[in-house]
């Protein structure tokens, strides 16, 4: 693999609809060689459609996408030599063993029988699947299937790897194991595009995040930049007496712009800043509270906030 300078994946104004449903509505972004890019978004945002376009499974209605300079439509077979896809559902043969699956995909990638067998052994070791190597994949746990699924994408070294929701449906322990796997691949220098619904996951694994919503890029940047965009910690105060809501609001004015919610009976300061809690409590002296809390914005709030921006970023 020759050293690629500049972006290894380029996406320009890609649009695609399924019937009347618009999945992608003019998406553009680039991925540098060796970068891990998180494609973040809620269900139906267009993440999988984007991955399917990049992995030559879907011809988009408009726009173009290049992998190492090759067009995913016009030069699909060249692109397939450069990419590996781990889709949303573990794409394995349940009746074959883990080892047989790896050998199968190695052989289909033109490895000799001996080479494919040796490569399978290496991958089984690397992904801690040696004990289960000769058991049928149908008997694997969700985490093991996922690991094998990723291993099957690594039988030959392709420079670009797509991981579509690699941890969806996994228990916390398997998720943590999988994060380790992705970090190790990043350290190997692979370019990875991974999709996720979880801000935390995108934060943990990727150097850069592209947020998709309704088929559009609504934000793009490093995890820290995105958190800035979404605001820091919010402080929520709930007085016992709802008549004191306004009083709370004016007491909190020095910390930001308080938002009063009469239905819930709360006053929220969206970006209270670190260490504000003790001074907030001091300012609220004389008001009885049922609750006061600091919390990070939820993913939902991040999306809401980002999608509420009038003209996008």
């Amino acid at each position, binding site marked *: 693999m020759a050293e690629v300078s500049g972006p290894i994946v380029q996406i320009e104004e890609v649009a695609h609809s399924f019937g009347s449903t618009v999945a992608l509505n003019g998406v553009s972004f680039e991925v540098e060689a060796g970068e891990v890019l998180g494609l973040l978004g809620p269900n139906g945002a267009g993440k999988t459609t984007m991955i399917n376009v990049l992995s030559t*499974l879907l011809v988009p209605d408009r726009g173009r996408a290049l992998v190492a300079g090759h067009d995913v439509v016009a030069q699909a*077979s060249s692109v*397939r030599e450069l990419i590996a896809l781990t889709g949303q559902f573990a794409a394995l043969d349940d*009746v074959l063993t883990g080892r047989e699956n790896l050998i199968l*995909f190695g*052989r*289909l990638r033109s490895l000799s029988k001996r080479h494919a067998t040796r490569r399978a052994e290496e991958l089984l070791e690397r992904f801690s699947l040696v004990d289960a190597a000769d058991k049928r994949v149908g008997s694997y746990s969700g985490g093991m299937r996922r690991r094998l699924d990723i291993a099957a994408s690594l039988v030959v070294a392709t420079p670009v790897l797509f991981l579509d929701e690699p941890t969806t449906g996994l228990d916390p322990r398997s998720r943590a194991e999988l994060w380790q796997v992705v970090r190790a691949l990043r350290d190997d220098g692979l370019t990875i595009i991974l999709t996720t619904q979880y801000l935390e996951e995108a934060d943990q694994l990727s150097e850069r995040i592209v947020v998709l919503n309704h088929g559009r890029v609504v934000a793009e940047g490093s995890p820290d930049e995105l958190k800035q965009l979404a605001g820091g910690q919010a402080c929520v105060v709930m007085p016992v007496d709802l008549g004191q809501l306004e009083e709370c609001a004016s007491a909190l004015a020095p910390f930001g712009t308080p938002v009063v919610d009469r239905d819930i009976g709360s006053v929220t300061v969206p970006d209270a800043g670190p260490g504000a809690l003790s001074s907030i409590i001091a300012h609220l002296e004389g008001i009885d509270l049922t609750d006061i809390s600091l919390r990070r914005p939820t993913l939902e709030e991040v999306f809401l906030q980002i999608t509420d921006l009038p003209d996008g970023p």
Partner: protein
Amino acid sequence: MRTLAADTLILGARSVVRSRRNPATVVSAFIFPLLFFALFFIVMRRVMAAQGFDYAQLLPPTIVAQAMLFAGMSSAYYVAADRLSGLTARLRSMPMHRAAPILGRAVGDLVRSFISLVPISVVGVIVGMRFDNALGVVGFALVALAFGLVASLGMGLIGYVASSPDDAVSIASMPYLPLLMLSTGFAPVKNFPGWLQPFVEWQPVTAVIDLLRAFTGEGDVGSTLPVAAAWLSGFGLLFAALGARAFKKAS
């Protein structure tokens, strides 16, 4: 072409391993045709004899054709299953020949076809079927397997469009009975209504059964071979091309 041959064999080997691990597949491939054979033979032999037909000679090719169509139906099931499991998507993202999956499926099914073919032929010979000569045996086997291959390719196409594996089998069972019953397998052409006779006489299953019978001395190989060969190679190429196209567009 190298990758087409190699990938087809690799995927064919995979489906053989799968069948081997599913003993029910093997048992049904062996038992079902024998069951049909026995039932038809017991029920119809005397009726046919009264009309001057030697059923031991006429029936085995029909049962072979039936078994090959039946084996092909499993191809519809497995193609749909691979598509729904996401395996097909992974294969589509890999640099392999687009016709390899359907051809691999069909080549793998040859083992199953062979498992059906042997007991039918052996029992056929036991009850009185005779081959012309050694060439007849080879021709009989090759034509049977070629028909199995084409049936599996055709049925496999259904797996690319069906919404589930079970759905695929239901759809695949629809052409199966008419093709088999409206052939010379169970009755001569003249016994069908006049408007149906041209179809019965020229449809591919008739061509295959007539050629199989010719190898057992019931008919002329020289006149039946070109028709069967044209049907088999024509449909084989057509189905493989459609299979490659369906794979390209599979979702």
